[in-house]
Structure formats: structure tokens, C-alpha cells
């Protein structure tokens, strides 16, 4: 032991060192984390602007009845609370006596009022019983299948109240025969219910027909299930008989789960009888209204089924071939517009120039309409009292007279439905008749025509072939209404059930189907001095004006899905056809580069 060896480092010292190292590493690591100050540009798609069914919504928060409230206050509170669908109207039911079985459920019957009812009258009141009367302006009703029917009238309803053992007033009897009905204001309905479309098939055809209903938004999670349930319930009374559903009767929804953006729709075993493809198309079009669902999977009694040649998980954007706008949805932008050129010929619009297609007398017809299969051409005589038909669509074919109107009557612009049927309404100031002409057959009168006693200014069949839009004079005002074409049990045509679309326009002169959900209408709003083009959603939502700038005196309008809206106008004694400078912008300015009149799209 000549020299003393230095001892090795002690473990404690080493541990301290390692701990210090750990601390240093951690602090260093966190010190490095900063927000980036530069870097490449990250792009993203804009959120879809269209209003979706499951967009954010607003709920009214009800209050429970207070013990000190009198009968009139109880009724006011009840009316307010019934606008809240939370927990199956739990709060509203607290206003009722326990004996009352009022249970509106998720698809209630709703009476829509113009505004809130203030100050109900107490008709008579004793210590124990009271009768309260409410009055207001009714706008319409929503039946339990979701169908809105405008029915403006004065509402006068009475409530019976009694005191409960605790000494507080409770409602014992509700007004009306519909015991489950709700009395809601327009605002309440807008807040608590959403207009949604259910899609059904046009009879014997593959294209779908939208059926707009009002669906209460209880919460967004159950919305898909509610929507599918409504679809399975079938069309509303309005379209009943006019459309078909691919779901066999008795099919019910077992459950609907949404996993991320995939909805799994599980139907009962009755659905085995239906065509998977057709059911999928209906579901696809119905579910695409929900922004949260991008794909769906169809199950029948727990078993996943897939359409022929397709994946079992289908995108909701699929089934474009079943579009209510017909099969032309894809490549729609090459829809050719036709117009009557200034020198009297039917021309196809190409780059703002009319290329003559049909010359001779057939080219001089006013309001020409080209059949969807481009085989025939229908038009009116110059006074509008004679209907001509011509074909083929080339050269100078003869214009064969088809119909001549009675004295004082005029025809509306002819309209083709997708199967090649020609429709026109012969209308006088106090009556109208609908003429239907199937290909190669003489025209016949529709057996049932819902507007027989009224003047009709325009009649356009939608591209689905089931719905028809009209401009009809009701009580001196021109209204846009939509009806449906159904075949009665005996095979006769039934065109009726016309319902007003919007009451925002004072006046309307012409309309056209832009797409299955929108009408392009030439009309006047309150305060307008001239007719202007408007886009009118069929659902009854607010109308929007189209384009800016002077149009002179617009007379006719033509529209097609994805194609520019064309307006035939007359300014300073010159007929012109106008379009928007930029087609895809609704506020783009109107320009009128083409001389001509009566533009139209085929179909």
C-alpha cells in the first residue's frame, strides 16, 4: 500500500448529476417549443356555405310555472314553453293537470301563428275553474307528417284551467280537436323546426322527388335517426300517391349510429323485400342534408348489405343518376339554351350569339319549348291563343296547330316533362284547364285540375316530372304555388294540391325551375316598381334577388341546373336576352349581349 488510490465517484454524487441532467434536458426541451414564425402556405377548402339541416340552432329555454301565476299567465307560460322540445316537452307538461294526456312527441301537429299572443283574456273565473281565450293570426298548420299547409285565418281558442290541490292553476283542457297540437309562432317554428327534404321516386322512373317537411330539431345527435324515420314513414299527404318509396311498407329503423362521419342505418327485416340500390339512393339523397354525415352503410336486420357493384360504405354524395334534376346532372353546363332570334328563327345560344336551328314558320313561334329528347318543338302563336308543335329540330319544319284556345283564353308557355309529355294551361280570368299531350297522341284535358276556377299565368313541370310550379291569381294577387301530378286509381291524371311557396312576392310574371329546390321567378317584391328576377327556394325559405343592374322590362325567364339564368327582356323597343356577367355569382351584374326573345332550356 505504497500510495492511496482515489475512491471511485460515490453513487449519491452520480445520482445528483443525473437528476441535474434530467432537469436540464427537460427545460431545454420545453424552451425549444415555440410557435412557428414562418413556413409554407397551408391551403384549405372553404366551409360549405349552404345552410344545412344540422347547422347550429337556437333553443328557447322554458320556465316552470310559478305558484303565484294567474290563469292567463299560466296560459302564456304554456304557450311559450311548448316551443321547447327539450325532454319531450317536460316543462310544458308541468303547466297541465296530471289528468291531461297531452303528448305532442317528436312529430307534432303545429298551428303556426303570426306572432306571440300577449295578454290572453280570462273569460270567466271562479275560485276553482277558469276559461282563458287566446286570439291571434294563424298562418298555417304543420301536420304530424311535417307537411306545411298555409291556412291564414284568425285563431280563437279557449283553455280550461283548474286549481290543483296545491292551489296553483293548471290547464285541464286544451283547445282544438288535435289534442297533441302545439300553438307556435312563426319564429318558434323557424327556431325549433327545420325544413328538410325527403326523397321518393317518381312513379315508374329512377329520378327522385324531394318532399319538403318540417322536422323539429331536438338535438343534433338524434337528427339523422329522425330524418330516416321520417323517410321510412313515407311521403306526406301532399305527395301521397304521386311518388313511390323503395322501402317496403312496414320497414322500420332499428337503430342509427353515427361513427365519425359514417352513418350506419339498420332497418328491420321487412326491408329485404326492397331493392338495395333504390333504397340506398333514397337514403343517400336524404342523408346528404346533414353536414356531419359523409358516408353511410345500410344494414338490414343487422346484416350489412351493399348495392350491386358497390362498396357497402357509400358516400352520401353518390347516386347522382337519381338526381331530381334528371340524368343530365353531370355535364349539365353544356345545356344549350334556345331563343327566338331577332329575324324570326329558333336559335341555339352559343357565345352570346344565336345560331339558327329552325327557320320558317316554326322558328317564329313565341315561347318555344324544345322537348328534352330534342325531337320536337312546341310554341304559341303570336297572340298566345294557339299551340303549335313542330319537328324535327332542324331545317324549316311545318308548325302543326295542336290546340286553339276558347274565346278570351290564352295558353301558358308550353312545358315538357322528362318523359316527353307536353303540358299547357288554357286560362281565362276566372277559369283554367290543363291540357296534356303524350307523344304521338292527341292532347287531352287532365281529369282533375286543382286550379280550375282561377287564372293561371305560368305552368312549369319540374324535371322530376311530379311537381309543377304555377303562377296563379288568388284574390287578385299573383302567387307562386307548387302542386303535384298524380295518377288516380283509375289512371286518370290528378294535378292539384297546390300550395303557396312564398308570400314575399307581390306579383309574378314568369318562372322556371332552376333546380329541384329552387325556382327562378320574375316578380315584384313589396316596394319594387319593376319585375326583377328572384331565386325562390321551394322549401319556403327567404327569396334572394339575382344579379344587379337595369333589365328594362323583363318578360320571360329560363333556368336550368348549373346553367346561367336567361331573361328575355324588352327595353327601348328592342327584344334582348340577358345573362349575368359571371354565372356563378348571384350578385353579378346583368348584361344583355344577345338580341332575341323568349329564351328557354330544353325540358
Amino acid at each position, binding site marked *: *500500500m505504497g500510495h492511496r488510490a482515489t475512491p471511485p465517484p460515490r453513487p449519491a454524487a452520480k445520482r445528483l448529476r*443525473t437528476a441535474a441532467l434530467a432537469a436540464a434536458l*427537460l427545460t431545454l426541451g420545453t424552451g425549444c417549443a415555440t410557435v412557428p414564425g414562418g413556413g409554407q402556405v397551408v391551403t384549405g377548402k372553404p366551409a360549405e356555405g349552404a345552410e344545412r339541416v344540422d347547422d347550429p340552432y337556437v333553443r328557447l*329555454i322554458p320556465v316552470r310555472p310559478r305558484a303565484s301565476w294567474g290563469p292567463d299567465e299560466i296560459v302564456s307560460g304554456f304557450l311559450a314553453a311548448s316551443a321547447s322540445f327539450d325532454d319531450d316537452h317536460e316543462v310544458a307538461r308541468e303547466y297541465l293537470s296530471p289528468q291531461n294526456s297531452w303528448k305532442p312527441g317528436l312529430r307534432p301537429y303545429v298551428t303556426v301563428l303570426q306572432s306571440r299572443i300577449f295578454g290572453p283574456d280570462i273569460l270567466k273565473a271562479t275560485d276553482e275553474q277558469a276559461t282563458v281565450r287566446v286570439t291571434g293570426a294563424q298562418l298555417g298548420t304543420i301536420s304530424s307528417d311535417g307537411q306545411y299547409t298555409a291556412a291564414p285565418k284568425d285563431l280563437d281558442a279557449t283553455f280550461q284551467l283548474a286549481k290543483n290541490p296545491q292551489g296553483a292553476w293548471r290547464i285541464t283542457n286544451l283547445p282544438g280537436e288535435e289534442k297533441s297540437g302545439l300553438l307556435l309562432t312563426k*319564429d318558434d317554428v323557424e327556431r325549433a323546426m327545420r325544413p328538410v327534404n325527403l326523397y321518393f321516386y317518381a312513379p315508374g322512373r329512377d329520378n327522385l322527388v324531394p318532399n319538403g317537411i318540417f322536422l323539429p330539431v331536438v338535438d343534433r345527435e338524434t337528427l339523422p335517426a329522425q330524418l330516416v324515420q321520417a323517410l321510412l314513414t313515407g311521403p306526406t299527404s301532399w305527395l301521397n300517391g304521386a311518388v313511390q318509396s323503395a322501402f317496403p311498407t312496414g320497414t322500420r329503423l332499428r337503430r342509427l349510429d353515427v361513427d365519425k362521419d359514417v352513418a350506419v342505418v339498420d332497418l328491420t327485416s321487412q326491408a329485404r323485400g326492397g331493392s338495395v340500390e333504390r333504397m340506398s339512393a333514397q337514403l343517400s339523397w336524404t342523408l346528404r342534408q346533414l353536414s356531419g354525415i359523409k358516408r353511410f352503410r345500410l344494414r338490414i336486420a343487422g346484416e350489412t348489405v351493399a348495392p350491386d357493384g358497390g362498396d357497402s360504405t357509400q358516400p352520401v354524395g353518390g347516386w347522382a343518376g337519381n338526381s331530381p334534376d334528371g340524368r343530365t346532372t353531370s355535364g349539365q353546363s353544356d345545356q344549350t339554351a334556345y331563343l327566338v332570334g331577332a329575324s324570326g328563327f329558333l336559335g341555339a345560344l352559343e357565345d352570346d350569339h344565336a345560331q339558327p336551328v329552325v327557320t320558317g314558320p316554326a322558328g317564329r313561334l313565341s315561347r318555344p319549348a324544345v322537348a328534352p329528347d330534342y325531337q320536337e318543338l312546341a310554341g304559341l302563336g303570336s297572340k298566345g291563343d294557339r299551340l303549335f308543335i313542330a319537328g324535327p329540330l332542324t331545317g324549316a319544319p311545318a308548325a302543326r296547330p295542336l290546340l286553339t284556345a276558347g274565346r278570351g283564353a290564352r295558353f301558358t308557355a308550353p312545358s315538357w316533362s322528362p318523359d316527353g309529355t307536353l303540358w299547357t294551361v288554357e286560362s281565362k280570368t276566372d277559369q283554367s284547364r290543363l291540357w296534356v299531350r303524350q307523344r304521338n297522341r292527341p292532347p287531352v284535358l287532365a281529369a282533375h285540375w286543382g286550379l280550375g276556377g282561377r287564372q293561371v299565368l305560368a305552368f312549369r313541370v319540374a324535371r322530376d316530372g311530379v311537381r309543377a310550379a304555377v303562377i296563379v291569381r288568388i284574390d287578385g294577387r299573383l302567387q307562386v304555388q307548387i302542386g303535384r301530378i298524380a295518377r288516380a286509381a283509375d289512371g286518370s291524371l290528378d294535378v292539384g294540391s297546390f300550395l303557396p311557396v312564398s308570400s314575399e312576392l307581390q306579383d309574378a310574371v314568369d318562372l322556371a325551375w332552376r333546380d329541384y329546390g329552387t325556382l327562378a321567378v320574375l316578380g315584384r317584391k313589396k316596394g319594387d316598381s319593376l319585375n326583377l328576377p328572384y331565386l325562390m327556394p321551394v322549401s319556403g325559405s327567404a327569396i334572394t334577388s339575382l344579379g344587379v343592374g337595369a333589365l328594362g322590362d323583363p318578360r320571360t325567364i329560363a333556368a336550368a341546373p348549373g346553367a346561367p339564368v336567361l331573361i328575355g327582356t324588352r327595353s327601348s323597343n328592342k327584344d334582348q336576352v340577358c345573362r349575368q356577367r359571371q354565372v356563378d355569382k348571384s350578385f353579378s351584374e346583368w348584361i344583355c349581349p344577345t338580341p332575341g326573345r323568349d329564351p328557354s332550356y330544353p325540358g
Partner: protein
Amino acid sequence: MNLSLDRAKRVTRRGLRGVRRVLRGTARRGYARWRRSIQVRVVTSTLFISAIVVAILGAFLMQQVSSALMDGKVKAARLQLDEGLAQVQRDLGTTSEDDNRLNAMVNRLKARSGPSGLYEVYIRDTTEQYFDGYATNELREESVPRRLRDELRHAPAGSRAYTYGKLSYVGDRPSERGLIVGGRTGQYELYYLFPLEQEQRTLTNVGRSMAGVGIVLVLLLAAIASLVTRQVVIPVRLAAQGAQRLAAGRLEERMRVRGEDDLARLARSFNDMAANLQDKIGELEDLSQVQRQFVSDVSHELRTPLTTIRIAADMLYESRDTFDDPAVGRSAELLQSQLERFESLLADLLEISRHDAGAATLDAESLDMRDLVLRVVGDIQGLAERKGSKVVLQLPGEPCMAEVDRRRVERILRNLLVNAVEHGEGEDIVVSVAADRDAVAVAVRDHGVGLKPGEGQMVFDRFWRADPARARTTGGTGLGLSISREDAQLHGGWLQAWGEPGNGSQFRLSLPRVAGAELRGSPLPLVPPGAGDARPLFAELEAGD
């Protein structure tokens, strides 16, 4: 039912006991490893301490991140609320009671709440008695805590407040934590409710990554500690092994020296120490060899003159009566007796030096121990009678055969018996013989003064005397017991002594039946039965080793 329950209970209890046993075993093993290995200790403490440090750091960082997140959120929320309140003021004024305007206002707020539920809005008109305002989406009104409402109600107009709470929803949507800011303008109360789900997710993610990093870090530290201690511990272990071998007598054992670090220095010092030890031990061995040789040589050299002296002394002794002076005759007698003593001393010295030199050999033959005992007792019978002692024999009936060297065993027995007679104080001397499968034993018991504590070992030392004052004239050479012990050990046997003051002593010779076999026990007890105290004051059980 009860039976099966009982059985189940029993099975469970047994299982629990088994688990407990296994756990205890594991713990014990772990503890043993912990005690035995520096490496385990260092790694464990590193793990423990670094885990604590990392946990503290992690908690601190989480706290920082969370408060930073919340601060940002609160700031954004208050800005949002301010904007909303300004909007409400612009749109509604303070007196308007137009339901439609409130409705439009709510719709505008709804549009801002965003599709993914960035926040929810709740607006309330305090003058409206039939409904409690509007909320966006599925938000329940209870989400706004009562305390926030009370705070706002009592606060001056235009003040804002915020709190954290739980947002609950209509339908199946689970409630979640949220930040709730509220403000009042005129009659309207406006609340913005921000779900903190995103923040919670961020925090969870950060926490998870931090936990992962922490665990990796702690494991890394443990690995480093393990590596470092390994580098230190392995040379230490090698040194320990080397020391062990050195202690076992392998003096040539050395450590490998590698490099020039501390551990190399340790190895070098160890090697130096081992070399020194080897040298010293070698020197000592040489020295003892020289000494033994010297004793042996001296004894031999003394023999020749002694023989001459002996012849002369014998002559003197025989003619002692012819001397006129009786003192001369007495001297001759004295010379004769001292010469005998000297001779026997020399013989003993030679014998012991033969043992020391390892030259003693065993001339074993199979003999009956009883015969040996009887012969030796016969030899000393006369001496015993002179001393007034009686020798009592306790011999077994059957022969006690053993492979022994007759001469050596006789010498041992004689030695023991002579000692016993000399120290026996005239009392009885008991000689017992016993045998079992592997060994035979002879015990010689006297009832003399006995041995003091510690003397049981010392009696076998060379030239030891119980009473140093006693003259050397009496008794033996002082080497007898030493030689006896060497002889016993040569047989692979034991020679042990027991004694108590006043109670006499007992010497026991135990020998294996087969020469050279290992002795495991003795057929006779070392402490004689019925010897005063049951527990001997002194017992040298291992004296033979």
C-alpha cells in the same frame, strides 16, 4: 350452498396465503439482492430519485402549460363576450321589447357559434317572465352556474365575470367541462360557454407525451447508473474474489491491472499487498522450518553426550552407597533422576519435532480398544495404588475394534491416566470406553482439583503447567498432552478436555474406526454425566480441530 361457500372461502384463503407467501418470498429475495449488490442499490435509488424529480418537473410543466392555455382561452373568451355585448347593445338598445329583434339577435349569435361548437351562447332577457331566454344548440340553461348569475345580478351594469363549470346538454351528449363568461347590458344577460374539450385533449396529449418522455428519461438514467456502477462494481468484485482466494492460502493470486485509472491503482495496491504478504509468510515459514530443524538437531546432538553422561551416572548411582559423604550419594540419586527426566524430555522433544516436521507416520492396525485400555491400566496400577487412587473401568461387552497405531494410542492413554493419577488427589479414576458405527472413544475422569475456565485449551499447550509455582521436578515433561493431541490428530481424531474447579476433569479421546476417516461425533459425552452443573462452565467442543 354453505358448504360450497365455505370451500370457496377456504380456497380463497389458501390462494391468498399462497400469494402472500410468493410475495413475501419475492420481497425477501429482492431485499437480499438489495443488500448484497451495490449495483441494485444504486440503480434502485437512481430510479427512485430521478422518478421523483421527473414527476415534480412534469407536474410543474403541466401546471405552466395548463395555466397558459387557460389564460389564452379566458382572454379570447372575454374579447368574444365584449363583441357580443356590443352587438346586443347595438341591436337591442336598452328599452326595446321587440320579440323579433331579440330573435334576429339570437340568430346572429347562433351563426357565430360556429358549426363545430366552438362555443355556445345563452342570452336572457331579465324582464321576460314567460321564458328564460335562448340557448344555442343542445346547451342546457343549467350550464350557467347559479353563482355566476348571482355575481352578475349584483355587479354594476356592464361588468363581466367568468367561471369554470360543467356544460350539460339536451340528449345523449355527455356533459363536459367548460369556461363560462357572462356580461350584462341593460336588461340582457349574455353568456358565452366555451367547452374545454380541445384544451383537455391538448393537455392530455402533452401530459401523455411528457409521461412517456419522463419514463424514458428515468429508464435511461437507470441504465446509465447501471452501466456506471457496473464499471465500478466488477473490479471491486474481482478484488473481493482475489482477497478471498488470498485468504484461502492461494498467495500467488493477483488482480489484472488495466489502464491507469482509480481502479487500476486499486488493483496495483492489492497486488502489492498480496506480494508483501506472500513474502512475509514465506519468511515466517522458512524461519519456523529453521527453528524446527534446530530443535531436532539439538535433540539429536544432545543424545550422544547424554548417553555417555548416562553411563557415568549409572555407575555413580550404583556405587552411591560406597560414598562416605551421604550428600554425594544423594547427589548421585538426584543426577540419576534428573537424567531420566532429561532423557524423557529429549524423547518428547524429538517426538514433537517429528510431528512438527510432518515426519510422524501412522502405523495402523486393527485393535480392540478394550485391550489397549486394560494394558495401560495394568501398567499404571502400581502408580495409582501408591497415590491411593482406584481405577474404575467401564468397558462395553463387545469388542471396540478400530484401526489405530498401538504405540501412539497407548502413549496417549498412559499420558491421560498418569495425569489423572497425579491430579486425582487419591480419588477414584473412571475410565470409560464406548463405540458407535464410526468412532470409538475413551474418557478418563478424575475427581481432583479440576480445571479453571480457559484451561481446557491451555492444557494442550507445550510446557503449560496448571500451577506455575510447582517444581518441574514432579510431573512429566510438559509436552505429554501436546504429543497426545498431535497423535490423536494424526489418527484424524480428537482429544478434548473438560473440567470444573473442585469437580475434577475429564479427558476424552475420540478416534475414527477407520484410520483417516473424518470424525463427525463422539460416542461419549465430553462432560461426564452427573457432573455438578448440567451446563458445563467450560467445554471445548472443538478442541480437537
